[in-house]
């Protein structure tokens, strides 16, 4: 036991696997001490940020200690004129945005639960929100990283300038790696200016074909929304939220043009939400992506929305109580959620949906699920053809399989 460790409690379990010890280092040096110590003693570790995405992946096969990053929460450097920030991994996204706002800047990532999600966790879980439509995901905004390897060595990749091609892109390797390659210690991000104005337009009751047509029309008209989310309402009906951000004049003009585009179409109403309603829509979105007991991510080509609505969704939605589905319409990413009424039925529905989306290159992964569902299927689904390469990477970085063993794709 060191000065920053304590015995684990029930709440420290990772998907039901309870460690013996919890470490809460307050400096990178302390984190190094923990990881190097665990290497010496052959202990298995898991890394936990805000703990919002622990439902991702499978339970660890072995877990001696959890390293929580919550005390590694400093802004190391903010260079407003260079629009970059370096942070420690345990800083929450919410705290970071607060620190940036006086400079009229933001990190253009908007996953749900920013007050709890840490930046290290966001990288490890590849967490993102609807603004990915315009700003990309973590991989597009992360420009530098330092992490503690399984053997306790600190490695850096990237740098603190946006444009940099020196060496292998270690930052990208860490994105979505779920703590299986190392403990993220610090991260450097590219920032964006806060915009002058933002508006959310709601187009109610569109069919899946209507969603597809809307995306095509928006693109044809050269509109540049920062989010396009189709929320399933009933049968073949979606309410589509389109968000514009930018200078006041630009936002007003884009909003008018969108209204003009859909005018006269069936379900052509285009309602500009006032601030309260817009906030309500997006917080409802966040709730659906974080609250329900079963949550799954479905990926496909954006144009496959009709097939998904017609062939894939009915089976899934029918197997859940309070079902919901959010479709990031320009990206081809959907978030299914609900409460499984019967685990067997839900698991079968997921398997069947998986087969339907995997043919054309899509995937269906569980982001959270009750144990009864997890027992019945692999949360990741069939691994991609590059699994042997992934295993090879894992073997180089963590030859003793001590970092969250078994959590990742294909049992990594």
């Amino acid at each position, binding site marked *: 036991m060191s000065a920053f460790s304590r015995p684990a409690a029930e709440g420290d379990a990772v998907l039901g696997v309870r460690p013996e010890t919890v470490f809460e280092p307050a400096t990178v040096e302390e984190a190094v001490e923990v990881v*190097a110590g665990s290497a*010496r003693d052959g202990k298995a570790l898991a890394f936990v940020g805000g703990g919002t995405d622990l439902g991702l992946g499978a339970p660890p096969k072995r877990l001696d200690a959890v390293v929580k990053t919550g005390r590694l929460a400093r802004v190391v450097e903010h260079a407003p*004129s*260079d629009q*970059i920030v370096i942070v420690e991994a345990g800083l929450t996204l919410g705290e970071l945005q607060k620190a940036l706002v006086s400079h009229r800047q933001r990190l253009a990532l908007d996953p749900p639960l920013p007050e709890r999600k840490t930046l290290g966790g966001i990288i490890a879980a590849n967490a993102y929100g609807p603004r990915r439509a315009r700003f*990309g995901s973590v*991989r597009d905004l992360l420009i530098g990283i330092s992490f503690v*390897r399984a*053997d306790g*060595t*600190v*490695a*850096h990749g990237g*740098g*603190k*300038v946006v*444009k*940099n*091609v*020196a*060496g*292998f*892109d*270690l930052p*990208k*390797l860490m994105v979505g*790696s779920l703590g299986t390659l190392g403990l993220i210690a610090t991260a450097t991000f590219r920032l964006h*200016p*806060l*915009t002058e104005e933002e508006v959310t337009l709601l187009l109610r009751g569109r069919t899946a074909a209507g969603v597809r047509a809307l995306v095509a029309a928006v*693109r044809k008209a*050269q509109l540049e929304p920062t989010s396009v989310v189709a929320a399933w309402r009933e049968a073949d009906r979606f309410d589509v939220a389109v968000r514009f951000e*930018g*200078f006041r*004049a*630009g936002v007003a*003009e*884009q909003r008018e*043009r969108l209204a003009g585009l859909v005018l006269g179409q069936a379900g052509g109403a285009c309602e500009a939400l006032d601030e309260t309603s817009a906030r309500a829509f997006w917080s409802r979105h966040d709730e659906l992506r974080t609250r329900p007991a079963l949550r799954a991510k479905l*990926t*496909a*080509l*954006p*144009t496959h929305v009709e097939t998904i609505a017609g062939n894939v969704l009915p089976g899934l939605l029918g197997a859940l109580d309070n079902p919901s589905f959010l479709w990031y319409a320009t*990206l*081809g990413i959907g978030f299914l959620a609900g409460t499984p009424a019967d685990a067997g039925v839900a698991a079968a529905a997921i398997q069947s949906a998986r087969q339907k989306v995997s043919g054309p*290159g899509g*995937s269906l992964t569980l982001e959270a699920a009750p144990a009864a569902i997890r027992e019945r299927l692999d949360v990741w*689904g069939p*691994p*991609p*053809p*590059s699994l*042997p*390469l*992934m295993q090879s990477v894992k*073997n*180089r970085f963590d*030859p003793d399989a001590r970092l969250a063993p078994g959590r990742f*794709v294909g049992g990594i």
Partner: protein
Amino acid sequence: MSASPSPASTAAPTISRDVAARLAAVVGERHAIVDPAELRTYECDGLMSYRVMPGIVVLPGSTEEVVRVVRIAREANLPIVPRGSGTGLSGGALPVPGCVVVGLSRMKKILEVDLENGWIRVQPGVANLDVSKAIGAAGYYYAPDPSSQSVCSIGGNIAENSGGAHCLKYGFTSNHVLGARVVLGDGSVVDLGGPVLDTPGYDLLGVLVGSEGMVGIVTEVVLRVLRKPQATRTFFATFPSTDEAGNAVSAIIASGIVPAAIEMMDRLAIEAAKAATGLDWPDVGAVLLMDADGPEAEVEVTADNAVELARAAGAIEIKRPRDEAERQLMWKGRKSAFAAVGRISPNYFVQDGVIPRSEIARVLREIDAMTRKAGLRVANVFHAGDGNLHPLILYDAKVPGQEQAAEEIGGEILRMCIRYGGSITGEHGVGADKAIYMAEMFSEADLETMAMVRCAFDPEVRFNPSKVFPTPRLCGDRPGPYRPHPVELSGEAWRE
């Protein structure tokens, strides 16, 4: 990592007649080059100061042929150097002695276009600009735009993670590659990513882009393509010196504008561009060329604000092109600047380094002082928006000592970039040219970690050995479990 002998990088390899014949049988006699005179074309890339004769050059026409070539090279224990159009400026495609150069120039088909979903599948030999040309009429384009885009290949762009003037807003190659088919060192073929986002697992595609030919040979690529923006507004501003121009860049970015591009040229670069193109540019200390693009009303505001800020920062004159033809002319001046420097100096080095953009004015002064002291001149033409410097160090190879002095200044500039918290390369890559500076930018542990990535892909170090890493690195067969050193156990030392 343990250092066991690595077959591909130890013995000086030569190509036996038998191996050459087998390779020729795969790609066809016409596409297997062994004649020394013909091989000369391949002994260097765009960095012509380094030359190494390859053992053989093969130009496969399909993934299957690449696989067979890789298998033969492996059996014969020969290193492989992949090559695109050979326009790279860091020696990334420089052969190693006696190697098999695999040129992808014959693989230039566009395989599949899906504009509604915003992607295109191409072979690696397709020229960057040909992607945009193929979809331009439909109103789409491929965003990364390196200056050599009319000739450089998509495969080469992936190897180098190429940028270009417009990556300030749109990002680099790595932000626009959705998938790739790769032939690995054991001859296996693997698909990474694809048109559908978020393939479960590690982002190996992210690792592939910018790996400088060290992990495998890319034989197919899925690229993201974008709808053209509704409007583009360009302005051209002149300044008394790079100080004011640098401050204008900082002010524009700080105001919340994300320009599509901001390029800067200094007095000497302007002089060269004028000499080469006949453009009627004024005789000033610096010019800025800026593009803003997006929805029309948004761009109007952006461009107006930027013009005001440039004026406030001390611009002498601000011009907006009257039409697209005039706009193209302004860009022509910028794009021809590199080659134009040849008009005002018998020889020059192109350097590529990055600094935080807020330091532009200060750094340019330092570079100026440094070159003056050495009795040389430097022309600057670069991507100011992201602090990506391209100093062109002018010298005369016929004057004894000048070439060496220019080389030394090039190195000093890189060291200065590191000192300012920047990078030794923003878009040209490390290749053979800058490997020694990697050890100044990264720690031994960082380099070791990068080598672990490489070894995970290519444990025999078959592909492009002796590039990027400052010292030769081998991969142990299997990385052994961590064994603490006795000193460590006794508490006398601590690993970091």
